[in-house]
């Protein structure tokens, strides 16, 4: 019996080896790789299902039309998950909030920021039980938020603004659907979270204590930045410009056709139409030419506020022991590369 098994194994191995041999030989014999092609065979875009103009680019196939190759859209639960996919080299384009971006840059992820995906307003808020009157009253309470996200960042900053340390409350790491379940079961007293869970919590008695629009005015802006893998951008710069043209088109559509945009997004994300419209109001889409001003990305050589905000985010995360170190300012400034967007907006 044993010998039989051994023989079978050996046969299996030799057949695998026989099949692999040509592949291995090809690796050894071929030169380091073909010369840089004009465009890739296909592109992979990672996204988080937030209400923003990227969903329009996806639904209207604007991206496919612009880049001229098939596009695979890969959904992620949060920017943190998307970072992990970037680390594993599984996507070409993506989008992350400023905290995951600060984490990714500090930890050396090989990507760069090329456009503003959205700016977060009241679409992310701190919602609490009605008997909790102020931020200070959160002392000793149980608060949930997805760790490593823009909401987590705003929560810690909001608590700090009210003179509370993270240790003064019980802060739990949960994904939005789990947050809603825990809220219904009364396991948690408050949560900093985004729509649509935010709206559901309000509908079942939750009261807004703070929102990301107000936090932005207090010096803690949160936004999502579109990223591209550095290798990809170096190899296929024209594809990156084409990709951005589609994104800019979608942002214009958002502004010029709000009704149609809402209908499209609501259908794509399986969201209620009124819910979608409310979320659209809480999210700011920045027209591409405006992104190239000092308030956002700036222009090549003249960095904008985004680079400054990234440094601030990294320092804040370090003070909360969420990052072991903060790199030199130049590293964060170097992450933002507005040159592709500049080419995309100039006709």
């Amino acid at each position, binding site marked *: 019996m044993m010998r039989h098994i051994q023989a079978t194994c050996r046969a299996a191995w030799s057949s695998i080896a026989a099949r692999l041999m040509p592949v291995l030989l090809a690796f050894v014999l071929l030169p380091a790789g073909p010369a840089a092609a004009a465009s890739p065979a296909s592109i992979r875009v990672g996204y988080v299902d937030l209400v923003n103009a990227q969903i329009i680019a996806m639904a209207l196939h604007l991206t496919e039309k612009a880049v001229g190759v098939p596009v695979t859209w890969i959904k992620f639960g949060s920017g*943190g998950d998307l*970072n*992990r996919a970037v*680390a594993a080299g599984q996507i070409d384009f993506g989008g992350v909030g400023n905290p995951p971006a600060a*984490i*990714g840059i500090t*930890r*050396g*992820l090989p990507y760069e920021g090329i456009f503003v995906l959205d700016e977060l307003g009241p679409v992310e808020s701190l919602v609490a039980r009605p008997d909790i009157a102020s931020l200070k009253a959160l002392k000793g309470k149980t608060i*949930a938020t997805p*760790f*490593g996200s823009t909401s987590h960042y705003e929560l810690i900053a909001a608590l700090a603004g009210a003179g509370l340390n993270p*240790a003064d409350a*019980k*802060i*739990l*790491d*949960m994904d939005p659907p*789990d947050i809603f*379940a*825990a809220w219904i*079961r009364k*396991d*948690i007293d408050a949560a900093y979270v985004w729509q649509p869970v935010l709206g559901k919590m309000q509908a079942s008695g939750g009261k807004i204590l703070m929102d990301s629009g107000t936090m932005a005015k207090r010096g803690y802006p949160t936004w999502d930045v579109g990223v591209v893998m550095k290798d990809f951008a170096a190899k296929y710069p024209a594809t990156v410009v084409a990709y951005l043209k589609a994104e800019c088109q979608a942002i214009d559509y958002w502004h010029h056709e709000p009704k149609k945009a809402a209908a499209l997004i609501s259908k794509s994300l399986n969201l209620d139409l009124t819910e979608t419209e409310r979320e659209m109001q809480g999210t700011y889409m920045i027209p591409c030419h405006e992104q190239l001003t000092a308030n956002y990305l700036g222009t090549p050589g003249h960095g904008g506020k985004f680079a400054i905000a990234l440094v601030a985010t990294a320092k804040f995360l370090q003070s909360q*022991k*969420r*990052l*072991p170190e903060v790199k030199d300012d130049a590293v964060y400034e170097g992450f933002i590369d507005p040159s592709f967007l500049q080419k995309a907006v100039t006709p």
Partner: protein
Amino acid sequence: MTQFATIRDSIMRGAGKTIGRDAGNRPARAAGRAATQGAASRITLPRGSLERLLTAATIAALFCAWFLLTRLELVNPLFLPPPAAVWQAFITTSTEGYQGSLLYQHVLASVERVLAGWLLACVVGIPLGFLMGTSTRIKAVFDPIIEFYRPLPPLGLYTLIVLWLGIGEESKITLLFLAALPPITISATEAVKSIDRRYITAVQSLGADRRQLLRHVIVPACLPGICTGMRISLGFTYSVLVAAEIVAATRGIGWMVWDAAKFLLSDVVIMGLIVLGLTGLALDLVLRRLERALTPWRFI
């Protein structure tokens, strides 16, 4: 009285038909001993020392590979940080803590959860297995339940448990309990079913009552199978630990690994995994000792 004890001793010596999973091992070991005695001149290494050498060499080789890969900068430190960074993470977490708790507190929180779930499973599973082994009707009731949920992925099960029991310790311990229950119940059932009928008839013919039957025959005959089941079960429980600590934990070694991965702190992740593995080994070692103490006749 003493006759029963004699039969119990004969079970323990493995006279006649041997018992439980170890059955095949015993004659082989005896034969091995005989062979060693017969051919003393041919012995080169004491038994097991080559194996130990191989184990040590494997660990050393893995460590050297890790050291060289990172030293020669062949891999991105984000994926595989050098041993020194992992050691540093160990020191920092032990002295300053990770997110508010020291390393030993994370380990303790996890071990407490695992032991709570596992002990609960032992308390429920062993009697349940006994009953299922003695009565086909009881088996018919519980078997479908256990067999159905056993292969379900723990994370899938967990989402439902969180909905039902909330985010506190109850849901975490319940998940661990559910992971621990099937192996222990199944092995208890099998242990009871495989008792040699001749022992039972023998003590009964000598006039033993149910209590004596249980004490002198059934329990000693089942112990080896149950001990093995308990060890396997603890392994299962341990492997579900990270899943159990993903939702709303603030402490625990599984949670630490999960949280550190979110912030791309791979040195903490690898350190946590090593600690997780060593803790698991330590728990298994304790159980092996216990097994030796409870069923010494299997280790002669």
